[in-house]
């Protein structure tokens, strides 16, 4: 029982969460810069998919840009101006998140605006958007502004907290679920069993970056690559936990995702997935210094000067308990 308690509540450093915050924000800023030349093509009502089609493809009950553009239109603001304003607000929110300035507010704004853009151009999305949406949501609640942030510079934050540990555990568990479910979905596929999946992924024009025609002469290599990926994904949720094997799994996972980034051209997806494992399992969660909420009963749950971002954000919620 004590071990379980320690597993979930032993005070942890904010650094892994801060690393995650910086990685997610930096990746999404890069994505925004890459997309910007075709901004209106993806999100404009007269873009590649006109407004009616945008509505068909977006999931019901999700926010879209059209109602906001229509609202501003009634005040005489042109669609292009409205879209630039939304895009500017998104970049501003991501920059604040990157810097850890008003982290909770920045994360909330980034999450909502990212969701809105994602839902507006739903059929252009891929894995990177799914993961960005998930982890931006986490960033609203986790104390990611507790380190490497403007917020932590402005306040004398604790170096570690049980909120950081609990957040870290939920995020780590999520990553394990991602890899295990992904492996189970893949292993039943004949392409994965024969290694044909590697050949197809590397040769399809949408992913093809280099000449891989030589792989056809080495089917055993394709098979090793496929089973190696499956082995890593299956082993992830087990071997990422013991200290003795963790660093090997972290490095192997980083290698896998950087390989995806370089050889399949999924640059942002590869970088983001690399960042998840590298920050949540690669950054040491132990921290020296005072333990914040553990230090004294007065500090334990007082949302005073030393409160982390999440504690301040959730103060109204907690006060109701």
């Amino acid at each position, binding site marked *: 029982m004590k071990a379980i308690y320690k597993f979930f*509540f032993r005070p942890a450093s904010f650094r892994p969460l801060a690393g995650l915050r910086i990685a997610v924000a930096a990746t999404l800023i890069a994505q925004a810069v890459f997309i910007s030349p075709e901004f209106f093509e993806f999100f404009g009502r007269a873009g590649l998919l006109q407004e009616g089609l945008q509505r*068909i493809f977006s999931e019901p009950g999700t926010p879209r840009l059209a109602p906001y553009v229509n609202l501003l239109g009634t005040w005489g603001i042109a669609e292009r101006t409205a879209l630039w304003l939304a895009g500017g607000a998104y970049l501003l929110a991501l920059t604040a998140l990157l810097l850890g300035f008003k982290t909770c507010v920045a994360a909330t704004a980034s999450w909502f605006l990212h969701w809105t853009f994602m839902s507006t151009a739903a059929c252009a999305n891929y894995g990177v958007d799914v993961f960005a949406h998930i982890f931006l949501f986490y960033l609203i609640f986790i104390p990611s502004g507790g380190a490497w942030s403007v917020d932590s510079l402005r306040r004398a934050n604790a170096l570690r907290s049980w909120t950081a540990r609990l957040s870290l555990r939920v995020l780590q568990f999520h990553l394990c679920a991602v890899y295990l479910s992904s492996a189970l979905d893949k292993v039943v*596929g004949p392409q994965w069993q024969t290694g044909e999946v590697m050949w197809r992924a590397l040769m399809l024009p949408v992913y093809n970056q280099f000449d891989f025609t030589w792989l056809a002469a080495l089917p055993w290599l394709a098979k090793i690559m496929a089973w190696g990926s499956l082995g890593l994904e299956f082993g992830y949720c087990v071997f990422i936990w013991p200290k003795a094997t963790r660093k090997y799994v972290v490095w192997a996972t980083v290698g896998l995702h950087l390989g995806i980034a370089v050889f399949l051209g999924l640059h942002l997806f590869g970088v983001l997935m690399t960042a998840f494992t590298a920050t949540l399992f690669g950054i040491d969660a132990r921290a020296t210094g005072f333990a914040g909420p553990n230090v004294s009963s007065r500090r334990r749950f007082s949302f005073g000067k030393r409160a982390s971002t999440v504690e301040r954000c959730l103060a109204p919620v907690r006060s109701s308990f």
Partner: protein
Amino acid sequence: MKRRSAKKIWLTVGLTHAALVLLGAFQINLGHGLVRELATIYGKFSGSTSGYAFFAPGVGSTLRATFNVIDEKGAVLARVPLEQGKNHEADLRVGNMIGWFWKDNPKRELQRSMTASWAAKIFARYPRAAAIEVVLEEFQLPDMDRYRAGERPTWTKYYSAKFKKAVAKKKEA
């Protein structure tokens, strides 16, 4: 006491969230009713009910969209892709958009609307165009055995449609 309660509450929240992550990851259906509705709504907000079957159970084929820009005399002025080649990320997303043309067997009417929308963009890029022919081709990749035996990848026509500028009349292939 207050701190202990807070820990219990946040652990419950975290574990409930984690349970939803598991249900989503393994695509376990919660059946019908209020719990499912609430989980669906929460899943939309948090992404917790997302699946992660990328490249699973295998890698399918791919479509490309090409546009023949035709002038008033019927001559082909240019043959252009939908992707503008500004950068890989933008092109990748346009490629994903094209992929929806055949995803989940959409209705013919929806496919027509998609090609019309794309053709409109090409008309905007080529003001001199009198007509645009949209051609969607599927990439046929032989497996490794057949490739070694000499077979090579080809593009085969999957769909085509022609749009005229003055009259929004279209002929389907």
